[in-house]
């Protein structure tokens, strides 16, 4: 039984007041709030176990190392990773994708090659490939979206071909709430011996993910969007690919042997974990994953599916509203715009009622152009949000509209 009121008690920030109003936090696609269980692990680590990992033969170093590596195992299990040596801690999705675009891209891409992305990518899965293309002469191609925001798979089949070296795609959209058919894309890519990278920033927090089942070669996600601390994310790659890749960052820990004129590299995953990592954050992510698994990702998905569809239905009753993305099979977020209140103004007016939503281009400027707008409003829900909060949102939008209309 999914008991949302009980879950809410684990999140101290949900008690927060904005002015005199109770916080209604609907900006979860930007970052999620943290349960007490994660916050306590961070405190406990710093109060009792803090040391640098993989070095030092003292007890604290051993405890810190064990906790850090245990967290890697937890996250690997969470993502359905068969072999944790391919699970690299990074700073977040952006760094994970940059790692691949740099360490794999610079080595394997050349003129005449193509990278196929979707036109709904977050900047973090677009700009690193622009840089890789500039450096290697490879070309970028884009799978268009259909009117309802879903991927044009017919066009994808035309675009992916012998020249394709890599397909990169968001698993779930941070604007459209679509869930892309990653497995089909993976099969398509593999038909032509191309690789597929999946940007899971908006899927790993919300859907059961199994990288093996998805058939992807690389999977990236961020800890802070899934109840974990900021500063830690994950790149999973098939170990045989990671072994062939050059390092991304050079420095401590990633080496085996260093001479003045050359070095050799450490084993996976350490070859890609240069310098002192965000140890506490990585351990915190392990606690976040424990929390999510405790609730069950299937249950979380079901809760969010319900609340997302309820929000879509409720918002669609507002006069002249434009909703983006498909009506069904969506994640728990809704992007929309109103003809008479600018997104920026609306988010400010909603803040007055304690409601935190996001307005802007959501780091998807090409998608905004495709949708014929510069900015949308986005309400994004998570495992602790309620239908009552959706009602509060709808009521506040109506009030804002009335307020704006009064001056017209």
């Amino acid at each position, binding site marked *: 039984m999914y008991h949302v009121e009980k879950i809410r008690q684990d999140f101290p920030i949900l008690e927060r007041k904005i*002015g005199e109003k109770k916080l209604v936090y609907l900006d979860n696609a930007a970052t999620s709030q943290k349960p007490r269980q994660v916050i306590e692990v961070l405190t406990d680590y710093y109060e009792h176990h803090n040391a640098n990992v993989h070095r030092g033969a003292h007890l604290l170093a051993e405890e810190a190392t064990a906790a850090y590596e245990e967290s890697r195992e937890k996250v690997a299990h969470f993502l359905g990773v068969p072999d944790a040596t391919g699970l690299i801690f990074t700073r977040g999705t952006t760094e994970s994708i940059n790692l691949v675009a740099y360490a794999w891209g610079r080595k394997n891409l050349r003129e005449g090659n193509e990278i196929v992305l979707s036109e709904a990518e977050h900047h973090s899965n677009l700009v690193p490939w622009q840089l890789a293309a500039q450096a290697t002469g490879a070309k970028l191609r884009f799978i268009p979206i259909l009117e309802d925001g879903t991927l044009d798979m017919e066009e994808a089949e035309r675009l992916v071909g012998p020249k394709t070296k890599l397909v990169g795609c968001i698993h779930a959209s941070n604007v459209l709430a679509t869930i892309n058919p990653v497995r089909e894309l993976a099969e398509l890519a593999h038909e032509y011996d191309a690789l597929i990278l999946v940007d899971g920033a908006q899927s790993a927090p919300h859907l059961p993910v199994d990288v093996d089942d998805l058939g992807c070669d690389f999977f990236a996600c961020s800890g802070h969007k899934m109840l974990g601390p900021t500063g830690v994310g994950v790149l999973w790659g098939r170990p045989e690919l990671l072994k062939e890749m050059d390092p991304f960052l050079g420095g401590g820990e990633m080496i085996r042997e260093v001479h003045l004129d050359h070095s050799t590299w450490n084993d996976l995953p350490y070859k890609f974990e240069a310098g002192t990592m965000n140890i506490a954050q990585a351990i915190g992510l392990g606690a976040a994953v424990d929390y999510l698994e405790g609730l069950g990702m299937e249950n979380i998905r079901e809760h969010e599916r319900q609340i997302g569809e309820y929000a879509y239905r409720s918002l669609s009753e507002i006069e002249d509203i434009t909703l983006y993305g498909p009506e069904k099979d969506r994640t728990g977020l809704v992007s929309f715009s109103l003809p008479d209140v*600018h*997104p*920026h*103004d609306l988010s*400010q*007016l909603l803040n*007055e009622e304690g409601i935190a939503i996001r*307005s*802007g*281009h959501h780091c998807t*400027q090409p998608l*905004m152009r495709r949708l014929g707008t*510069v*900015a949308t409003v986005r309400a994004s829900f998570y495992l602790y949000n309620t239908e009552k909060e959706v009602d509060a949102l709808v009521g506040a939008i109506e*009030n804002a509209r009335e*307020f*704006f209309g009064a*001056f*017209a």
Partner: protein
Amino acid sequence: MGMMRELYGQIIMDHYHRPRNKGELENADLEEHLLNPLCGDEITVYATLDGNKVADVKFSGRGCSISQASASMMTERLMGKCREEAEEEIKHFKNMMTGEEEFPEMDDLAALKGVIQYPSRIKCATLAWTAFQQGMNDEGEG
């Protein structure tokens, strides 16, 4: 809705719903396009110069109430001013938005005072003014 009424006062909403000098200017001596990277809003300001004097000012683009109202107020403010006066006006306005100068009382611009409390919105208020400033610099160089 208390603070909201303070921020979105009558004057701002009046300029937003009935912007002054909105439109494009053909054969403008000064034309500058500027993007607010925060929200993707864009504005273009135009001016024709008569010798050293700003003969006509217009603005186009889309944006939130604060950016549109502020642009509208700016056109009224700069119309007919000589180049040096216009530069001074812009400097004063930007200083007001950073809290370094007081807002003049009994002036439409004073309506934007509330924006100071919302640092993320200051860029909205200064967008048109910055565009005009850059336009004058470019025009001066050209």
